[in-house]
């Protein structure tokens, strides 16, 4: 499986109702630190109900500038939610089915880590 096979998939609930498009995959750097970077695992998927248009993260971070870009982006991706990976039932080609009662979580990223 490669990441771009998942991106853009339709996300449907347990009854087959379309909830939106999968626009990103939430990862977590976890596990024991080894010599280099530790394991990175999938912890959830980000679903945007109204748009497949590429997102620049405005709706997930506390960023509002420049307004000419941030406003339309926030509007396009309004209602975006995060689904815990444990609530994903099946992944098919172009279609991801959630479990019954899958929770819609807040998609925001906690802090903006910065390094270079």
């Amino acid at each position: 499986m490669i990441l771009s096979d998942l991106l853009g998939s339709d996300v449907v609930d347990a009854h087959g109702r379309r909830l939106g498009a999968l626009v990103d995959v939430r990862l977590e750097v976890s596990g024991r630190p080894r010599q280099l970077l530790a394991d990175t695992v999938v912890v959830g998927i980000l679903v945007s109900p109204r748009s497949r248009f590429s997102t620049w993260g405005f709706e997930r971070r506390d960023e509002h500038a420049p307004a000419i870009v941030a406003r339309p982006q926030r509007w396009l991706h309004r209602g975006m939610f995060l689904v815990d990976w444990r609530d994903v039932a099946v992944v098919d080609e172009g279609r991801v089915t959630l479990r019954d009662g899958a929770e819609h979580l807040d998609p925001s990223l906690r802090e903006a880590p910065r390094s270079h």
Partner: protein
Amino acid sequence: MNDRRAIGRALDAHLHLLDRQVLDRDDVPVTTVDDLELVGIELGAAIDRDAAPPRVTAILTGSDLATRIFGGRPPPSRRVRIPWELVAEIGTAIRLGVAGDTLDATWAERWVSDHIIGRIPGGRHDPE
């Protein structure tokens, strides 16, 4: 550079990884992140709630760029992989913990260097 602060950090694959520059141990550009390989997702199979979550296992480059632009699917054998365990740091660029010239991803660069650029007089000297 072992970035301990990174442990437990949440990242979004598309936003923070895709299309970013990959640098080697000495800050030499290697490639861009054209795609990511995920292991632990089987198409069409029911996912066990308690199963271990899927993992990122490699940065993909080369033919994956072409398929992202033009569509289609290359045979997995054509893929150029950079194993994820070589990644040392994730920032505005992805930094590896090894030297770039040991990787398959730099094959074309080394070929051009050895067969063309390195043979032109002055090609192996610092600029003056």
